[in-house]
């Protein structure tokens, strides 16, 4: 894990800025998609153990709606957009004009699922195109996958690559929330960007802080 040990506070600031720019664009996209005010918190860049990672969205067993994609190209990694069930329900209900829709239903409506997938597409697309513009790197996201399941089961998908190299993960964590709901942590959506360990060098090089 020599790459990680060499990370300075300047590097952390750069990673924070990536989270800032990415999430700001995604929040704007979400806001215009829903015609609602969406706000974001200051990004956090943390180096955490796999087990601490589970606590970043309420614990391994918490059921969430998760969008996951892999990033390929000049920089590689995993990206997640995690929404608490309650907040995902609100967003999708408003998107498809159906206030009965719920991700807790055993039989999910196809319309609701594809709306969520599309929302994942739009949000991760705006996060990553902002990241690409900012760094000048060519990155290619895979088509996002959707899962409604335990947070631990979802997030561990993104820890596999990292676990070959380390027992800790550097996570760029940005949370967004609907305005008026900011004091209720359970309705925060999270963007988690987990660069693959080999990708930090290329990110720092692209931004001139190698």
């Amino acid at each position, binding site marked *: *894990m020599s790459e990680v040990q060499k990370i300075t506070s300047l590097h952390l600031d750069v990673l924070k800025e990536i989270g800032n720019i990415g999430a700001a664009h995604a929040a704007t996209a979400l806001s215009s998609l829903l015609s609602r005010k969406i706000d974001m918190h200051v990004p956090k860049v943390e180096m955490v153990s*796999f*087990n601490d990672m*589970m606590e970043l969205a309420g*614990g*391994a*067993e918490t*059921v969430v709606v998760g969008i*996951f994609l*892999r990033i390929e190209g000049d920089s590689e990694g995993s990206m997640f957009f995690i929404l608490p069930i309650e907040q995902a329900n609100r967003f999708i209900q408003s998107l498809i004009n159906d206030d009965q829709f719920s991700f807790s239903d*055993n039989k999910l409506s196809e319309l609701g699922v594809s709306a969520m997938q599309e929302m994942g597409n739009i949000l991760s697309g705006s996060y990553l195109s902002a990241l690409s513009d900012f760094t000048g790197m060519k990155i290619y996201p*895979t*088509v996002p*996958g*959707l*899962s*409604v*399941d*335990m*947070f*631990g*089961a*979802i997030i*561990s*998908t993104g*820890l*596999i*690559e990292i*676990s*070959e*190299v*380390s*027992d800790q993960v550097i996570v760029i964590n940005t949370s967004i929330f609907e305005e008026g709901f900011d004091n209720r942590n359970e309705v925060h959506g999270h963007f988690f960007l987990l660069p693959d360990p080999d990708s930090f060098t290329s990110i720092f090089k692209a931004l001139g802080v190698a």
Partner: protein
Amino acid sequence: MLHKMIQTHTSQVIKVGIAQLDVVKMPDTIRTSGLGSCVGVVLYDETKNIAGLVHIMLPDSSLARTETINAAKFANTGIKALIEKLKLVGVQPFRLKAKIAGGAQMFKFSSENDSMRIGPRNVEAVKRELIKNNIPLIAEDTGGNSGRTIEFNPVTCRLSIRTVNQGVKDI
């Protein structure tokens, strides 16, 4: 008086995190949460009511690109380490039996990326390692695309598996 003694020894749930392992004696139970592509391997001795659980992430320690490895992370080293730890609490390895759960594929991708098929590879590696150590596999709940939380009771030797959509089942 006896009644009182039993009451004071309440059972605890020992929690095992991702890439960790631990052992329990009755009346305690052992549990791990949010298994996705990871596999939870329970090794138990039903005569002594002792069980161990390892939450493995990767099939083989040869995948590690580090100098020191966390044994509990890999199927090959994790199962060996768990057997050793069970020996320390007086279990004879020939009495061990296994139950396993996990190895799901949480997201469907057309991509051939190997790490997306990690669940099935983990399950295969665990089974290979059990055979290598002559430990019979009594029951399994593997594959699919749901996350699992599992809890093993060394008294009943039942593994309880909870998923979001199918509730709780015992194997």
